[in-house]
C-alpha cells in the first residue's frame, strides 16, 4: 500500500479489500504540531511578547491585536506558561474606556477598549477623559486575551461595553467599529457577535438585524462578501458563518442534520468553500487567486 503523504490531513477514508471506499469512523490525524518547529515558533512569540522590532510601528494603532496574536499563538502552541498572566490582564484592562457615569452610556460613544495609546489620556484634574477611541476589534481582542489567560470576564464592567455598543450598530444591521465614523462591514459584525458571546449577554446588539445583514452578504456563488454586493471572500465567509453560529442562527454539524432548509444556502456555500483549495494544497480567498496561509484559517 502506498504510504500516505504526511501533509494529507484530509479525513481518512478506509479502503476495503476490493478497493471500494466506504465511509468509516474518522481516524485521528497525527498531531499537526509534529509538522511545526514548535520551539522556534514559541521563541518567536516570546520575543514579540517582550519587545517588538520597529518594523511593527506602522501597526501601532493595533497594539491590542498584536498582543492577541502573540498570546493566542503561545496558547495554541501550549506555551502559555511563558507569560505572566496577571501582567497581561492588567495591561489589557488599562485600555478600557470607562464612562464617568451611567448617563454617559447614551451619549453615542463606545465604551469598549482602545487599541493603542495613540490617544488614550489620563483623566484630567476634573476626572474628564477626553477623546474616547474605543474600538470594536480592539474590544474583541481584549476580551479574547483576557479569556485566554484565564481572567474572569464577569468582573469587568460589561454593561458599559454592551449598552454603548448599540450605538455602533447601523440601520442595516452592520456595525461601525468606532463611534466617530469608519467603514462598516462583516468584520465588525463578527467582532460584535464575539463580544456578546464572550460576555454571555446579547443586549449589546440586535441579532435579527445583524442576521439580515449577513444574509444580504451571501453572493450568487455561495460564499460571502464583506458587504452586500461584494465578491465572495474567505475572510468574509468566515465572519458570516461564525457570526451566525455565535448568534445561534445555525447549529454545529449542519450537514448531518436532515433539515430541508437553512437560512443560508448551505450546499452552495460548502461547494464554494471546497473549491477554494488550490492545486498547491493551500486555500485561496477568492476564485482564481493565489493561495495564502490566512485563508486556510478562514
Amino acid at each position: 500500500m502506498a504510504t500516505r503523504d504526511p501533509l494529507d490531513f484530509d479525513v481518512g477514508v478506509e479502503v476495503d479489500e476490493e478497493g471500494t471506499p466506504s465511509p468509516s469512523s474518522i481516524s485521528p490525524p497525527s498531531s499537526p504540531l509534529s509538522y511545526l518547529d514548535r520551539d522556534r515558533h514559541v521563541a518567536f512569540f516570546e520575543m514579540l511578547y517582550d519587545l517588538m522590532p520597529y518594523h511593527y510601528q506602522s501597526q501601532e494603532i493595533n497594539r491590542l491585536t498584536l498582543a492577541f496574536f502573540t498570546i493566542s499563538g503561545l496558547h495554541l502552541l501550549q506555551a502559555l506558561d511563558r507569560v505572566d498572566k496577571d501582567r497581561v490582564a492588567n495591561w489589557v484592562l488599562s485600555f478600557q474606556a470607562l464612562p464617568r457615569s451611567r448617563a454617559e452610556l447614551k451619549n453615542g460613544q463606545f465604551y469598549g477598549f482602545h487599541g493603542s495609546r495613540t490617544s488614550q489620556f489620563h483623566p484630567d484634574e476634573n476626572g474628564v477623559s477626553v477623546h474616547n477611541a474605543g474600538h470594536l476589534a480592539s474590544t474583541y481582542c481584549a476580551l479574547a486575551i483576557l479569556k485566554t489567560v484565564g481572567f474572569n470576564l464577569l468582573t469587568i464592567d460589561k454593561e458599559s461595553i454592551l449598552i454603548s455598543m448599540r450605538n455602533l450598530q447601523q440601520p442595516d444591521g452592520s456595525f461601525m467599529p468606532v463611534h466617530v465614523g469608519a467603514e462598516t462591514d462583516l468584520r465588525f459584525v463578527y467582532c460584535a457577535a464575539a463580544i456578546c458571546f464572550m460576555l454571555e449577554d446579547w443586549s449589546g446588539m440586535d441579532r435579527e438585524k445583524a442576521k439580515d445583514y449577513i444574509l444580504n452578504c451571501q453572493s450568487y456563488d455561495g460564499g460571502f462578501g464583506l458587504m452586500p454586493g461584494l465578491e465572495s471572500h474567505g475572510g468574509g465567509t468566515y465572519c458570516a458563518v461564525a457570526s451566525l453560529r455565535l448568534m445561534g442562527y445555525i447549529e454545529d454539524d449542519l450537514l448531518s442534520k436532515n433539515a430541508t432548509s437553512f437560512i443560508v444556502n448551505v450546499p452552495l456555500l460548502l461547494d464554494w468553500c471546497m473549491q477554494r483549495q488550490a492545486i498547491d494544497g493551500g486555500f485561496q480567498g477568492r476564485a482564481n487567486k493565489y493561495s495564502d496561509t490566512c485563508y486556510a484559517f478562514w
Partner: protein
Amino acid sequence: MESSEEDGGVPLSRMAEWRDVTPLRQDDGPNPVVPITYKEEFRETMDYFRAIYKADERSPRALRLTRRAIHLNPGNYTVWHFRRLVLEALNTDLDEELDFIQRIANSNSKNYQLWHHRRWVIERLGSNARSKELHLIKSILSLDAKNYHAWSHRQWVLQALGGWEDELDYCRQLLEQDIFNNSAWNQRYFVVTRSPFLGGLPAMRASEVRYSVEAIVVNPNNECPWRYLRGLYKDDIESLVNDREILSICLKPSQELRDAVVALWTSDTRPLDADLATAICDILEHVDSLRASYWIWRKNKLRIAA
C-alpha cells in the same frame, strides 16, 4: 495651505513653530506587553500628535502634523479622524485632499482608513466628483484588477452617486483582458441585478446566459462563468436544469462541467437521477482527487436522499 512636500526628517523639537507645544508621551503602564521599539521620528511625531489632539487644536500646523503621522502610520484611524475635524474647521479645499489621498494610496492601496477617508471627501463633494472618481478607481484597477477596496469603493460610488450607464461595458472590457477575473464577474452580476437602467435579472437573464456560456466554451476550466451561470438562476433552478443549451454544454467532457452537473443536484427541488449522479461522483472522486472525500460524501448523500 499645506505644503505638498513631506517634512523629511527634521525633528519637530527643532522647529520653531512647535516650540510652544509640550509633546505628550504615551503612558503604556508599568508592565506593557508587546512594546514596540519605535524609531525616534515616529515616537516624536506621535508625542506631538497626542499633545495637539488632546488640546483639540484644529489649525494649519495640526493639519500638517496629521499628514506627517499618516505617512508614518497610514492605518491610524484616530489620526485620520482628527484630520477630518481639522479639514472641516479650516474649510480646506477638498479637491486638494483627494490629491493627498491619491499620493498616499500609491503605496497603500489596500488600506481601509484611506478608502474610508476618500469616501468622506466624496460625500462632501457630491455628484460632481462622480466621473472623476470612477475614472480614478479604473486607474487603480488597471494596476490590480482585483483590488477589493477599489471594487468596494466603486460599488459605493455607483450606488450613492450613479454612473451605471457604462459599467456593464467596463465589465466586458475587464473580462476581455482576463476572463478569469472573478472580481469582474462579480461586478457584472452587481450591475445586472442593480443597475436602474437594465431592468434587473429577469430582463437580463437570456443575454447573460449567452455571455457566460460563450465564456465557458472558451475556458471550461474557469470556475467563474459556471458559478455566474448558476447565479443567474438563483431562485429558479428548475429553469436552469431544463435549459437545452446549457445541457448541451454539459455533455462536452471537461472537469468543470462535471462539477456543474453535480452542482445542479445540490438543490432538492427535483427527483435525482441516482445512477448518473452517482457515476459523476465516482468520476470526480478520481479526477478531482484533492476533493475526493467531498465527492464520496456527496455520493453517499445521494443514496440517502433516493
